[in-house]
């Protein structure tokens, strides 16, 4: 009980001590909070997307089969589809038609696709919200496409996909099979790639091996690889993130070091007075530790809450110019709120602990002086 009361006194004195040097400590908290804000924003954003990917791509195709010629994609012929369908272990196989269309006037890349689930009428298209936004299209309006044979074709918007779907379908343009073939000059009986369902999900790798042996110029892609790819996005080893994290860490170290090597005369005097009136060295250090904790904990809480608001309420506005890069068609994600406990705890320890430790170092040197010296000050 006495211990708790003692800590309360220490905290009280620590607060008053910080307030007495208001300007310096306010600047410290500001810098600190900014660093935490940037880091936490990154954590929240990337964490949210990764989580969305892991939840959503669980239903992605079990196996995608591509054909490669000289290291590049080639169209898959119907015969491949027939032969693969005949393999034991393959429950269902179908061909997909999809490709990229570059729209030169605006400079946007679109993904044009044929969907078996959506029956799209001739010369109409179902477009993603990003397409609608970039080309300012509404239902019923028309957009002109350049076909592979040099002719032009107008497509009317039959439907615009929901805004929530932007994460998956922002740049999507769904057309009918004939329109796709005419647009890209793809002959009948050829597909962009094949998607398979396997009978036994544990046998996916085996089935993939069989396909490879049967058709050596194909490349099967497994669902596990899809999921792992998205676990690895926004990896800290990626150039941009490395620089940001490195920069933040450097800023933090410089600041903490600066604090660590400078103890004002007034602070030193106060430590001496405490020693003189009967405080032990450990108690003086405890006081300084509380000062460190107050500053870093305050910064952490403010920074993290601000980051949460920034990413999930204000739609990560500060990251927008960075993320947009060279894209013309820029998806506006609906981010599901994500707070990773591990990341938060890691951030907490990475900020509060080193900073508090850095505050203690100079104080230790001051706190071990003989109180006798205070008499002579």
């Amino acid at each position: 009980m006495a211990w708790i009361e003692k800590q309360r006194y220490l905290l009280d004195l620590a607060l008053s001590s910080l307030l007495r040097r208001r300007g310096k400590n306010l600047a410290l908290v500001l810098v600190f909070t900014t660093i935490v804000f940037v880091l936490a924003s990154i954590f929240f954003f990337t964490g949210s997307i990764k989580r969305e990917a892991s939840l959503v791509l669980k239903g992605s195709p079990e196996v995608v089969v591509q054909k490669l010629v000289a290291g590049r994609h080639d169209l898959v012929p119907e015969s491949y589809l027939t032969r693969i369908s005949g393999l034991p272990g393959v429950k269902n196989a179908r061909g997909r038609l999809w490709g990229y269309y570059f729209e030169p006037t605006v400079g946007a890349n679109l993904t044009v696709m044929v969907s078996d689930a959506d029956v799209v009428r001739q010369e109409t298209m179902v477009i993603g919200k990003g397409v609608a936004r970039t080309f300012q299209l509404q239902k019923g309006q028309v957009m002109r496409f350049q076909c592979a044979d040099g002719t032009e074709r107008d497509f009317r918007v039959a439907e615009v996909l929901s805004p929530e779907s932007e994460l998956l379908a922002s740049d999507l343009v769904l057309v009918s099979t004939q329109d796709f073939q005419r647009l890209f000059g793809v002959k009948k009986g050829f597909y962009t790639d094949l998607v398979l369902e396997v009978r036994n999900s544990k046998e996916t790798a085996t089935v993939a091996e069989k396909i490879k042996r049967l058709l050596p110029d194909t490349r099967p892609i497994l669902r596990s690889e899809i999921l792992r790819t998205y676990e690895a996005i926004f990896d800290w080893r990626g150039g941009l993130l490395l620089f940001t994290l490195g920069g933040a860490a450097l800023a933090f170290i410089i600041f903490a070091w600066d604090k660590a090597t400078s103890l004002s005369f007034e602070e030193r005097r106060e430590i001496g007075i405490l020693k003189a009136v009967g405080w032990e060295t450990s108690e003086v250090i405890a006081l300084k530790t509380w000062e460190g904790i107050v500053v870093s904990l305050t910064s952490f809480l403010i920074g993290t809450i601000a980051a949460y608001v920034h990413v999930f309420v204000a739609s990560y506005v500060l990251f927008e110019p960075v993320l947009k890069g060279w894209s013309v068609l820029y998806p506006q994600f609906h981010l599901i709120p994500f707070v990773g406990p591990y990341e938060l705890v890691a951030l907490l320890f990475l900020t509060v602990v080193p900073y508090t430790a850095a505050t203690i170092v100079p104080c230790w040197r001051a706190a071990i002086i003989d109180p006798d010296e205070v008499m002579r000050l």
Partner: protein
Amino acid sequence: MIVLKHVTKTFNQGNSNEFTALKDLNVILAPNKVTVLTGPSGSGKTTALSIIGAMTKPTSGRVEIFGREITSLPERFLAQVRRTQFGFIFQHFNLIKGITALENVMIPAYPNGEPLGSLRERALSLLELFDLLPKAGSKIDWLSGGEVQRVTIARALINNPKIIIADEPTAHLDSKLSREFMDIMAKLKSEGRTIIIASHDPAVCESEAVDEAIRFRDGQILPSHACV
């Protein structure tokens, strides 16, 4: 009773500016008395005061306080002894600027962890004793010299110590305040405390409250017990 046996204190040992402040000091200070350590500056009286008050350890020799040897105590226990047995009044007051008189008075008791209510009460009653109650909530930056002096005395008493140590307490006071100070010391003595003052101020040494004067010169005690 405070006993110093063969106490020597050397500063900057081994360096070129080595300086011996006290040489083989032997002194017994009686309890419940006001003792003044007097002498010119540099005579070692402040150092002696430091050693008596457990603020520093002698280079050699032993110090006993009420029969308990403190020279070999580790720093932790020394600090506890300092906190519970002693109250300090410094020459330069040494209060923490920017906080109130009340907080300054309470600070030496913080490590004890006693409940805030009783601590506040005790601190307030001490301030009241010295007519400082209206100034209790004022920051000490706003107090006059005499008021600050009284706050330091109140602070020295917060842990109810048996021994009061004062280093040149009248250095920043006029004669009226110096007299008041000595009156307060006499009162504290009558409460059963032991007072030890280091001062080269004749007003202190010649005060009626003083029971004994010990003269220092060049780190040693002179046989004469006169004031000047």
